[in-house]
């Protein structure tokens, strides 16, 4: 077994690291405090090719693999989890399905600008009554000649306010339950489509989380991605890939918190020695380092399986579960290692602590990951 990156993957990681440390890390605290969407740095990420990593060059992307995506995303998250979720949603939840299930005409219209970073995409599945139970879709899309008329509400949509394109899931045949769900690309200024609210959040505060309202929103049938009734399958398959992204985000958050802790444990003295020399602190750092390595390895395994075209549902859920739990534990302990300072904004570990929490919730809660893994192992 080889666990070494190729030259290209290592160069992509190094580029993402340098860019993130030089341009993202310095603004992370400020955009978190102000809940400000980082337009300038996101634009530069697009220019570098970080927003359409796995899309072939012909469709505006970078033509790289999932492993490259994972190593780059970890570096971005290590500096700022908000940038990481913007990157993850654009790559995994928008570009991936539009590339995989879209026709060439749809790719040209809806994928190329987003994969090239000229516009952003979002993924609108969750509704007030359809979170973990994503089948319970109430948004409807009624066929009317060459159009569909969409009516409903989508909740907690990442990049929902900033995106120019939304991949929206809706019932085209409510009688068939989740087999009656279809997927549509809805463009920003379509009449009847509006953003009704941006949430005020605990973490990933620089990423906008919005409520989308569809009020008899008329969308051409040419905007339907995949066949009628295939929407739920598309959503689940997309989330498999997305979970690898969130796992990488979680690893990055953990690394950020861990590195601050190691630095602090060397510098801070209590009872006459650096606190790292107190066994209880040393052990916390040892547990952090070990869990991070484990989380990173499962994430890379899931990515490698996806790149090889092999099944990866179970591994993606394992990676998401383990990495999210690791991020939360590491960030909690990182605050602890910092003592009273850790509780203060200035130390910046409290940001990792607040950011870590979402990784246990979105794209399937930790409980839902366990359901998926259990189903797979009992198959």
């Amino acid at each position: 077994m080889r666990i070494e990156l190729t030259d290209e993957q290592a160069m992509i990681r190094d580029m993402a690291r340098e860019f993130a440390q030089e341009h993202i890390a310095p603004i992370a605290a400020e955009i978190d405090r102000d809940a400000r969407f980082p337009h300038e740095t996101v634009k530069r990420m697009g220019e570098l090719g970080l927003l359409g990593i796995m899309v072939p060059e012909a469709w505006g992307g970078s033509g790289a693999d999932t492993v490259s995506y994972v190593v780059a995303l970890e570096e971005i998250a290590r500096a700022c989890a908000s940038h990481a979720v913007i990157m993850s949603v654009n790559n995994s939840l928008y570009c991936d399905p539009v590339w995989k299930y879209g026709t060439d005409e749809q790719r040209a219209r809806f994928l190329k600008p987003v994969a090239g970073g000229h516009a952003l995409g979002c993924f609108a599945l969750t509704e007030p009554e359809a979170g973990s139970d994503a089948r319970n879709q109430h948004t409807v899309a009624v066929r009317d000649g060459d159009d569909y008329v969409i009516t409903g509400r989508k909740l907690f949509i990442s990049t929902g306010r900033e995106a120019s394109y939304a991949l929206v899931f809706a019932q085209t045949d409510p009688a068939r339950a989740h087999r009656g769900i279809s997927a549509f690309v809805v463009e920003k200024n379509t009449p009847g489509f509006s953003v009704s609210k941006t949430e005020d959040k605990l973490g990933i505060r620089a990423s906008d989380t919005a409520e989308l309202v569809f009020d008899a929103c008329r969308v051409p049938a040419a905007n339907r991605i995949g066949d009628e009734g295939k929407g739920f399958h598309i959503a689940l398959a997309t989330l498999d890939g997305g979970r690898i992204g969130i796992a990488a985000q979680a690893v990055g958050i953990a690394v950020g918190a861990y590195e601050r802790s190691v630095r602090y444990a060397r510098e801070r003295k209590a009872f006459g020695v650096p606190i790292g020399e107190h066994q209880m602190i040393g052990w916390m750092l040892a547990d952090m380092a070990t869990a991070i390595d484990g989380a990173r390895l499962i994430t890379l395994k899931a990515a490698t399986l996806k790149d090889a075209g092999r099944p990866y549902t179970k591994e993606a859920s394992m990676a998401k579960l383990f990495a999210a739990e690791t991020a939360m534990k590491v960030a909690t302990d990182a605050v602890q290692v910092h003592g009273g300072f850790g509780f203060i904004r200035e130390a910046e570990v409290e940001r990792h602590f607040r950011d870590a929490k979402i990784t246990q919730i979105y794209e399937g809660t930790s409980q839902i990951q366990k359901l998926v893994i259990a189903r797979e192992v009992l198959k």
Partner: protein
Amino acid sequence: MKIVVAVKQVPDTATQVKISGADPKAIDTAGITWIVSPYDEFAIEEALRIKEKRGQGEVVAVSLGPDRVKEALRSALAMGCDRAIHLNDPAWANADTLATAQALAAVIKQEQPALVLCGRQAIDDDMGAVGAQLAEVLDWPCASWIMDEAVDADAKTVRVGRQVEGGLEVFDIPLPAVLSAQKGLNEPRYPTLKGIMGAKKKEIKDVKPGDLGLTPGAPQLMVKKLEALPARPPGRIIQGEVKDAVKELVRALREDAKAI
């Protein structure tokens, strides 16, 4: 317009350099991360900007060094250089700045570029000599530590600005010429993902001394020994009333440190 950029691979700026236990003339290379010398990145960036501004041309990266140097050349290709040449032979293992300049000059004579760019110095041994020696061997004009350049429309001359104390010294230099880049010339780009993915499809040509009609002899400059700097004496904190402490500080600076 063809431009050759000379690049050197050096240890990462964060490296804690240690003298090798086995060879007191060398550093311990175990665990070192190698990078393109930062001043050379300014040179690469400027070459790419000249090409982009003119809408045509070719940028060729050249480096002398062992196998690992391919990584540095690949970075140059990922940034946007069109192809690379690797001067790679054990005969060059102990090349000093003059031997390096002679080897580079031989390649440059074959390539016949209108312009050669390099960094003002490599950040490992800080010799800062190759650019000027290269120009001397080629018998081309040279401007070192440039902060600004503008190649004229028909690529016959280049106007360069050199940073001097309190101002900019401006020259018009006929091409071909050798220029060395100072920090501030530009802000080097990051390689894009497309650039990185495309780099492996670009050519890195291996060149041996024989291909250039050279037989490298013994270098004129030989390292006899490397010595670590003596450990820095510990700092001193002057305690007591501020009034007295300041007096003691001034005395210590004047008498002990002889700094004022």
